[in-house]
């Protein structure tokens, strides 16, 4: 099964990015083998709708779960429609996050954790 982690860098030792729609990279990894692909996020500088675009990207990569810091309302709605489980409040490095997920330490989020435009530079 594929899992997607928002990441500040392009490998498993990178820190989890607390933003979803405007994270630096999406690490799409196989939960069992940890084989992964790092996708540079093309939506960082988009004017609006970054969460929606990023959700579709994650869906296209066929991930079933997203591990991230926060998701906004539009991203949450889109991920839900795609049948992707969302887990927020994740920090530390990407590898640790996957390990914790495998141990069942996370609970799926029931709603958006932040409001729109959270990921825009302050």
């Amino acid at each position, binding site marked *: 099964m594929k899992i997607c982690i928002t990441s500040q860098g392009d490998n498993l030792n990178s820190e989890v990015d607390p933003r979803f729609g405007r994270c630096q990279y999406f690490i799409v990894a196989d939960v069992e083998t940890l084989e992964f692909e790092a996708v540079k996020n093309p939506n960082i500088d*988009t*004017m*609006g*709708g970054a969460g*929606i675009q990023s*959700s579709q990207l994650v869906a296209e990569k066929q991930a079933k779960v997203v591990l991230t810091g926060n998701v906004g309302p*539009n991203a949450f709605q*889109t991920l839900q*429609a*795609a049948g992707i489980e969302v887990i927020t409040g994740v920090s530390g490095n990407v590898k640790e996050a996957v390990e914790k997920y495998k141990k069942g330490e996370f609970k799926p989020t029931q709603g958006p954790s932040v409001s729109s435009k959270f990921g825009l530079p302050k």
Partner: protein
Amino acid sequence: MIISIASGKGGTGKTTIAASLALSVPGARILDCDVEEPNCHIFIKPEIKEKTSIYIPVPEIDKNKCDYCGKCKQVCMYNAIAVLNKTTLVFTELCHGCGACSYFCPQKAIKEVNKEIGFIEIGKKDNLSFIHGKLNIGQAMSPPLIKAVKKYINSAKVNIIDAPPGTSCPVVESVKGSDFCILVTEPTPFGLNDLILAVEVLRKLDIPFGVVINRSDLGDKKTDVYCENENIPILMRIPFRQEIARAYSKGQPIVEAFPEYKKDFQDLFNTIKNGKFS
């Protein structure tokens, strides 16, 4: 004739100037295009005679016709549509109503439906015609409403447009087509910084402009120096007076609280009309 009042920085006195100018030109009309926070009515106190809702077209997807090809999301510049496996989602708050999605949909599965974004109100105060727009709370897109307000421009009259602050789309939409733009500023570092941005916008739009310095005896002389170097006429200076601020806080335009200013505003208008800047 269309004279717009803009500023760059907020709170420099756009409405103060717009209201008093409109009240000093017989038979003028004032159009408040600061639809996110219109306030001309507080000073003009018009009798509102007409109210009209303004809509933008947003897509509605016919689920029986949609085959999830994704063309609509591809052509949407504003990321307002998501197409997933067997779902198409529309985020109307991101939609600009451009119509590209329905135009390009190969299945003709997209119909445009009206979504209210706000309303305009039309009224009168004596001989002064009054029009403003009010954007609904939660709406991000003001240009379509500003366009609706500007439909009430009467080219046979003197039209005074109160623009929103800043230099982004709503300001461009408001000042576009003006014969002249008054930039209201204050002699502070913030005022000057934003004035320079506003000047760049007006030069791009090729609109003649001049500057009014409000609270002109505060701050420093850098605004004067800038205008001189850039060959920008300073049309008027209003010194800082607590009495003006007090009148403003009670919704009294300068020319009503201090009738001696009426001549200054008439001169300001004549200067702009004759295009003679000293």
